[in-house]
């Protein structure tokens, strides 16, 4: 972390928001001037994270229309009270958690939306652009093998891979999202590991 991002975190803004802002060219403005009501900044954060949020919601079994509204509400609340970001170290984690809570609220207020059968938590295995790295035969073999390993795992275990591997969250953060302690997340992971090794 350089000195700007330290100032940012000291001010209570998430470190990854700072990094993103830097990419976006905001670092030239003074740190104090960062405002979430800035339309360009909202656009930028939205562009960065909306797809991740949508995919995560779909994986949890919600419909696209419901998710669009929920994501909208998450961003709306964030714009109204940016102080919510105080002491959040990862913006992405904050947004995931906010979306999950928002979806639970929707479930509570309109009992129509209660999900009865939660779909399988799928992780897709693609091989589209791999040909640049390895040969076609190899590619098929690897794809099948990884797919098999993923199939052995439970939904929860795949969800943890999704959060840990694809979204790079800490075990504490994953625990909070899944309403588990980080110790029990680790337990689930160890069970997954012993399944994979067999």
């Amino acid at each position, binding site marked *: 972390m350089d000195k700007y991002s330290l100032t940012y975190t000291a001010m209570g803004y998430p470190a990854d928001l700072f990094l993103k802002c830097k990419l976006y060219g905001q670092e030239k403005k003074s740190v104090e001037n960062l405002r979430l009501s800035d339309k360009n900044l909202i656009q930028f954060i939205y562009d960065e994270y909306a797809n991740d949020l949508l995919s995560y919601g779909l994986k949890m079994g919600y419909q696209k229309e419901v998710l669009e509204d929920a994501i909208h509400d998450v961003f709306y609340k964030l714009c109204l009270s940016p102080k919510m970001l105080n002491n959040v170290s990862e913006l992405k984690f904050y947004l995931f958690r906010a979306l999950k809570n928002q979806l639970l609220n929707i479930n509570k207020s309109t009992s129509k939306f209660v999900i009865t059968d939660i779909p399988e938590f799928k992780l*897709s295995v693609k091989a589209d652009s791999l040909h640049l790295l390895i040969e076609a035969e190899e590619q098929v073999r690897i794809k099948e093998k990884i797919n098999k390993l*993923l199939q052995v795992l439970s939904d929860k275990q795949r969800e943890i891979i999704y959060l840990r591997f694809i979204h790079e969250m800490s075990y504490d953060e994953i625990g909070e999202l899944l309403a588990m302690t980080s110790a029990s997340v680790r337990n689930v992971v160890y069970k997954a590991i012993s399944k994979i090794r067999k």
Partner: protein
Amino acid sequence: MKFSHYLTYTAADFSTDPFFLEWRWFQTEETCLFWTSFLAQHPEKSEEVLLAVKIVEMLVEGNEVSFSPQDKESAVKKLTSRVYIHKKRKKITVYSLSTVVVFFLFFLLTYKNTGVINSESDKKNFADISEKEVQLIFSAGGKVSFKEDIQIKYDTTGNIVVQNELGEMLEKHESDETHIALNRLIVPKGKRSSLLLADGSKIWVNSGTTVEFPSVFENRDERKIKIEGEIYIEVEKDTQRPFLISTPDFEVAVLGTKFNISAYPEDPVQHVTVAEGMVSVVSEAKKQRNVVAQNQQLQIIDKMQSGVTHVDVYNFTSWKDGILRFESEPLKNILTRLSRYYDINLAYGDDIESIRCSGKLYLFDEWKMVLDNITKVSPVAYSENEDEIIFRYNTIK
């Protein structure tokens, strides 16, 4: 697992090896340690390993669906216009509120002239108005007040910067020559503030709290502050100088940790909850001492320390994020916290005494919405009269 086992592996072999995938997918300590030392000892394999890392990354994908750029653009447009409307509406309510206040004052003045109002309640009213603002009082005698929630920062030489939540500068203060100066921060009900001390420690100050602290920690062997109310503090580590926090009923000593102290004199139960590290708590009255470690809480009931228990720390520190999370918490405690947070008068009948709740309340919502949410999840109803809101048990649901 032995290193030699992997010496003949190609990228394709690595990318389907269970132990390799464990490392990529779960990043456990064991696997991280193994693979980093493997790479360190066998640099000749690094090319194959890195290729395998890339393969796994490209193969296992997270996002199968995405918004189109047009979708995103129109969503952001909708969002900004909604935020704009909200802000405008807020202004209008403020205007109409101030009209009401003017009328009320007019009424009060005419009423007073008839001599009906008694002077005591009159005085109390005025005291209340001045207590609606966050105040920073300097030892030299100066005082500044703020209408909004503020962030205060002291640098190592005692210079002060005060900002609002948007980071706009509100006040700047050069340090005066008397360094040992004790300052006092008063955060009334309905307000919150944060405070960065000269040693780098950061304090979140909850509603209805007073903090006394020096501009600079001059003393070579300790750092000392006083509080009454509730704070969450991240103490900057300094093994030479322990950090001491005293409340009317007990004292907490630490080296460098993160923890929450709730010490409202009017609360029957006060507590110290540790998020990181370790603290020791001493109460003067009975010469009791307890050590509280990470994820533990010590309750102080009627100046007596009761045992240390394991808790979910976030239930006690969530207020600093604008959230109130609780687990099987007596409803009356939640009401006490809300009445401080929003500065509203909440009363309750004896019949709700035994009700406990679990859940989460968003404190950035308006108080009415929060109270309505409570009535949705527990068997209570509330009614408003002119100066308080009363909660009662309600069986009809």
